[in-house]
């Protein structure tokens, strides 16, 4: 088995085992109207935003960078989408025939495909902005993306004039709440994963990303346009954040600039780290391992709720998980595991 997959799968297995001991019928799956429901499916459904983020984040971290702004970009795209569907919300006075439209579940100002296209475009521009700062202005990735992380929520507020826009348009809600045997958002994850996998692993881009992450200087000496590779990685990361923003806002049916995607950047980064891509150093990456890492992060959250940990204490517990993961991935832990392994083999 791919060695990058071993640790995340083991971690996920451990947490799910823990959950099943905690929650009776954890693994049971019910069928309703032909759709599947259950705790396990909920974990995957709730993980879909982190999974989307982790795909883009993997590429960025593989180039040796990091993107702290994905949570804020989610908020921006949620605001853009909500506003495009229902700009009348912001009007001071409306004639009655328009006022009625505000909470009409069948009304959208722009057709859905335009909404999605423009939103993703805006998110990609956010990614390009980050990539430009990192690759061309040569600002440290953490500082460069911190700018949009801070400014992004302000921008999201500006877009909706500080108003939390409720979303009534049902087809849009389907992105986050829809179900076709499995939750719709999981199909979205699968599609994005497949496209990203093909465009990195069936082209030279994946190898170039890894090469730049391992040794940017040597890559440049080999003729690789190291800056363009970085720009591309951040752009894809922005695009993924835009998609995650669509899913998140569709799920809660509102553009909440203050809360959508809040601290999600940390979960996404952790998901990638659990997936074995080295934060700070970059290099070898596995998209699938990152996806499993994202599910691990969500499973941790869910089990904390199951344990009755209050929401405000959740971050503290996650901190402990981070420490555990870092210890588990350290060279010392690995060599310890290896030694244990060989001792067992040596035993008669």
């Amino acid at each position, binding site marked *: 088995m791919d060695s990058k997959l071993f640790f995340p799968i083991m971690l996920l297995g451990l947490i799910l085992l823990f959950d099943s001991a905690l929650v009776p019928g954890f693994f049971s799956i019910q069928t309703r109207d032909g759709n599947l429901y259950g705790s396990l499916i909920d974990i995957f459904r709730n993980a879909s935003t982190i999974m989307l983020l982790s795909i883009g984040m993997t590429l960025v971290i593989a180039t040796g960078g990091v993107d702290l702004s994905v949570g804020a970009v989610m908020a921006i795209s949620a605001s853009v989408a909500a506003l495009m569907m229902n700009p009348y919300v912001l009007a001071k006075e409306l004639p009655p025939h328009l006022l009625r439209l505000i909470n009409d579940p069948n009304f959208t100002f722009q057709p859905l495909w335009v909404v999605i296209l423009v939103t993703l475009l805006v998110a990609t521009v956010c990614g390009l902005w980050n990539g430009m700062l990192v690759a061309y202005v040569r600002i440290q990735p953490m500082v460069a993306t911190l700018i949009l992380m801070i400014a992004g929520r302000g921008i999201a507020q500006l877009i909706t004039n500080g108003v939390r826009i409720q979303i009534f348009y049902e087809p849009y809600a389907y992105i986050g709440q829809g179900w076709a045997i499995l939750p719709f958002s999981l199909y979205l994850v699968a599609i994005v994963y497949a496209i990203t996998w093909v465009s990195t692993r069936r082209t030279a*881009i994946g190898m*170039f990303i890894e090469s730049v992450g391992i*040794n940017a200087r040597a890559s440049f*000496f080999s*003729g*690789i346009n190291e800056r363009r590779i970085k720009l591309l990685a951040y752009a894809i990361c922005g695009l993924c954040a835009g998609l995650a923003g669509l899913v998140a806002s569709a799920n809660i049916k509102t553009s909440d600039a203050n809360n959508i995607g809040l601290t999600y950047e940390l979960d996404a980064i952790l998901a990638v780290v659990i997936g074995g891509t080295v934060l700070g150093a970059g290099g070898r990456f596995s998209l699938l391992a990152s996806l499993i890492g994202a599910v691990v992060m969500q499973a941790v959250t869910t089990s904390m709720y199951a344990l009755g940990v209050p929401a405000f204490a959740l971050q503290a517990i996650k901190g402990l998980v981070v420490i555990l993961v870092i210890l588990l991935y350290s060279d010392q832990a690995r060599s310890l595991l290896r030694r244990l392994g060989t001792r067992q083999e040596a035993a008669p």
Partner: protein
Amino acid sequence: MPDPNPSGLLVSMQGIYKSFPGVQALIGVDFDLRPGEIHALMGGNGAGKSTLIKILTGVEKPDSGKIFLGGREVVVRSPKHAQALGISTVYQEINLCANLTVAENILIGRQPMRFGAIDWKRMNQQANEILVRVLGIEIDVSRILGTYSVAIQQMVAIARALEIESARVLILDEPTSSLSAHETEQLFEVMRRLRGNQVGIVFITHFIDQVYRISDRVTVIRNGRLVGTYETASLGKMALIEKMIGRTITEFDEMSKIKATTGEHIGAEPIVTTDDLGLTGDVEPIDLKLFPGEVLGLAGLVGSGRSETAGLLFGLETPDSGTLRVAGKEVTRFSPYASLMRGLVLTPEDRKATGVVDDLTVRENIILALQVGQGWFRFLSRQRQMEVAERYVEILGIATPSLDTPVKNLSGGNQQKVILARWLATNPQVLILDEPTRGIDVGTKAEIQKLVLSLAEEGKACIFISSELEEVMRCSHRIAVMSDRRKVGEFPGDAEEKALMQAMAGGEA
């Protein structure tokens, strides 16, 4: 009572051995330092100078050997311990705080206090005294250090080292490499003054003429062995260079035969022509011609501008004067990618930093540049990658467990071959090889030299850069000599070694 230090030596290192994984860095090296002398430490890259210094300053532990300080045997446990013993080092990169004042830098950690606050007046006064007393220079100590020239900053570093750590031994590691001529003279003035105060100075430099201007004795190390310690005044420049470059005894006679036969195929039209090509501060305007089927040797000491010239040709930097023509066309876009596309490639000097991508596999490293030429989307199939990699592993005799082994697991020589393979796979017309044999065992060295000649035989043009003069002479049909960032002469491949050395030394005998 017997004199505890009958030799009167400040430092005496005896029989120092040190090995790193795969390298014997120092083999029984002796080194000593008298009080009140400036002792130059010379040797090519990888000769073992820095390892010796690291052992003296406690950064590395010797495998065996003894260190005496003032006649007493000591074990230098750490850099901090070395400072406590009175050994201070000032590095090329200054490790002071550029955003603090000169006085703060000198007295940091022991600022005079008054009513629980820093007594600025007294601090500036003290710092001023120290600078005048120790170095004999007078500057405004309340100014921010970063606003002063590098030379002054270096002197402040020296003042701090000598005053705070009351050092008797001062090690200056290439202090002049970023200084102007005037600044160097300032620094030398300070060094002479310190010599008068009985401080022993170890002076590491690549500049031959500075050795003669300032040092009393010179120690030469080559390939981890001590060549000898000499009174500078009694050792000619030529003799010094000879000792630094050395002569490896090898059976390379056949090489000169190959060279003679390949020499007949050299083309008439140059493939690379430079006309006053230069970059301020890097390379003085240079004229070079390179013909197909020819190996042009680029000789010169480290820092003479060889690698910088190679970098200009390869497009690592954009020149600010002159023109470069490759295959008849004037070059306007300078980048490694553009060079690759016009068939001009470079195997860089620093294999680790700019050569191998160490976590990628042997296969990926070999096809990397070929793939760059193909672009992002026309991805070489796995099978094609294997074919290319297999072919070059065979041609170059790369010893690797498999094609999917990370290249970092290979030995230095094999890594070098992988980089060569990376470029050969792109079928270049011009190859620039910057120190392709550095840190490689003799057998592999000979293989690479033969390879260069056989590439020339195929009609490719090569520029061969090496610190080993003998190697350059063996492989090259023509030799350009560089000194002090300019081309100082051009010689035929069978030129007298003496003439080349004279040119390398800057034209003086």
